[in-house]
């Protein structure tokens, strides 16, 4: 392992958070812009503190202590059991494995923050700040560490090869661990908070509520690219032993999958609506990054391109499905872009990945089992956790706050005090 290259890559990850923050605040209304950015900072701050204090203990690392149980003649390694407050990590160089484990702590701390930012996009314009902080704490302290242990901490999903004669589940850049977990959290938040007032008419027709700053959204995409390259590179080095040459491949693959996702979304929207849609193009870009991150170091550039194209098309249609057919109000498209494209990315690893062990079929099966664990175990857990939090601290702002905007309602001041804020001509009162 090249620790300097890994550390350098880890330092780029916060740019992914900055990019996602710009995207979801730009796709929301101007009257909630300051709230969206403050919510992002709070989510990252809370998740960093809670993860380092508690979450890392559950997430663990390969070779560390674990909670396991025996069932069906198999030992199921399901949770890490390190000491709280990161006391198991030595930063002074006295421990031979300390460097590796401290890098795991670094990358997972940022990864937990990224996962906490994803649902903000689905709750834009109505999710209150205090519940956001509580939900971020729950995500970083319990939910994210469980799946992080299964994939990055040597848990049962990575041991499918040894225990069941299959291949181990692969999630090199966190498509499942970060993006799908965050996307499923976004789905739960969208269900519980409900749609923005005026989003759907009485007969169920969706009203377009355009984002207030598409320029920031596009800039956010470029920032996210840099952050994603750092995330994919660091995770590939740390969890899959990628060398400098493979890291160069990771960079190329990340760029190609993002480009393919964006262009696919642009072409699809151009074909369907006669003009390319900027916000869906941005969503396609992020969908490409998300899907490509699962296999970043293990596929050829052509496979990364294919993964990105499918992700861009899939995200575009899923956004439409959720909004128009299922009436789920997700202003930033987080469910489709992070959960939908992330699941596709995990399956694409099995389909396109270069592996030295196991057949193509066993890899596909291992990836499908991972997806089943995300939908069948993590989603109910995430949903139940959010329901519980919503019972103690209601997620949704009251009716007046819905019209007033989250900035005035929760912060007492708007993001653009010198600008005249117009009424929503496009939303029936």
């Amino acid at each position, binding site marked *: 392992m090249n620790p300097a290259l890994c550390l350098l890559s880890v330092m780029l990850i916060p740019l992914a958070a900055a990019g996602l923050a710009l995207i979801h605040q730009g796709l929301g209304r101007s009257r909630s812009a300051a709230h969206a950015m403050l919510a992002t900072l709070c989510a990252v701050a809370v998740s960093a503190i809670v993860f380092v204090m508690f979450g890392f203990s559950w997430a663990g690392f390969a070779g560390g202590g674990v909670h396991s149980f025996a*069932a*069906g*003649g*198999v030992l199921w390694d399901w949770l890490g059991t390190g000491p709280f407050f990161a006391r198991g990590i030595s930063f002074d160089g006295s421990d031979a494995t300390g460097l590796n484990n401290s890098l795991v702590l670094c990358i997972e701390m940022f990864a937990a923050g990224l996962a906490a930012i994803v649902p903000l996009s689905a709750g834009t314009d109505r999710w209150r700040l205090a519940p956001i902080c509580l939900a971020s704490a729950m995500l970083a302290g319990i939910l994210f560490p469980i799946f992080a242990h299964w994939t990055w901490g040597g848990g049962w999903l990575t041991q*499918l090869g040894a225990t*069941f004669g299959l291949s181990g589940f692969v999630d090199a850049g966190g498509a499942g661990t970060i993006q799908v977990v965050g996307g499923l959290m976004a*789905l739960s938040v969208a*269900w519980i908070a*409900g*749609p923005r*007032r*005026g*989003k*759907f*008419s*009485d007969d169920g027709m969706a009203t377009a509520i355009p984002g207030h700053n598409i320029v920031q959204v596009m800039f956010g995409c470029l920032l996210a690219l840099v952050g994603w390259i750092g995330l994919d590179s660091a995770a590939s080095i740390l969890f899959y032993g990628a060398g400098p040459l493979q890291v160069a491949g990771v960079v190329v693959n990340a760029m190609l999958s993002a480009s393919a996702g964006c262009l696919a979304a642009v072409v699809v929207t151009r074909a369907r609506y006669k003009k390319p849609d900027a916000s869906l193009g941005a969503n396609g870009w992020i969908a490409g990054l998300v899907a490509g991150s699962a296999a970043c170091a293990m596929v050829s550039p052509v496979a990364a391109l294919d993964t990105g194209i499918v992700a861009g098309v899939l995200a575009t249609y899923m956004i439409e499905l959720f909004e128009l057919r*299922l*009436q*789920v*109000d997700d202003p930033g498209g987080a469910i489709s872009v992070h959960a939908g494209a992330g699941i596709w990315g995990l399956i694409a690893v099995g389909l396109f990945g270069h592996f030295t062990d196991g057949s193509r*079929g*066993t890899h*596909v*099966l291992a990836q*499908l*089992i991972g*997806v*089943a*664990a995300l*939908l*069948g*175990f993590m*989603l*109910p857990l995430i*949903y*139940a956790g959010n329901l519980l939090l919503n019972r103690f601290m209601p997620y*949704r702002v009251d009716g007046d706050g819905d019209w007033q905007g989250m900035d005035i309602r929760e912060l007492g001041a708007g993001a653009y005090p010198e600008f005249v804020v117009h009424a929503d001509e496009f939303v029936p009162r």
Partner: protein
Amino acid sequence: MRLIGCLLLVSGFLVVVAALVLLPRFGLRLAFTVAGLGVEVLGIGLLTQGYKPAQKEQR
């Protein structure tokens, strides 16, 4: 409807885990895993349907 959706999600996962433990052949494991995923997708669909009436109240 929401409760049934949640139960379907968990059931789908249990189908996958049971197939992994009980079935030795690759083809059967794959078939049951795909079936389990199908049950989970059904669960998500039911949960989403379950939230539609509640959303009407918030319009």
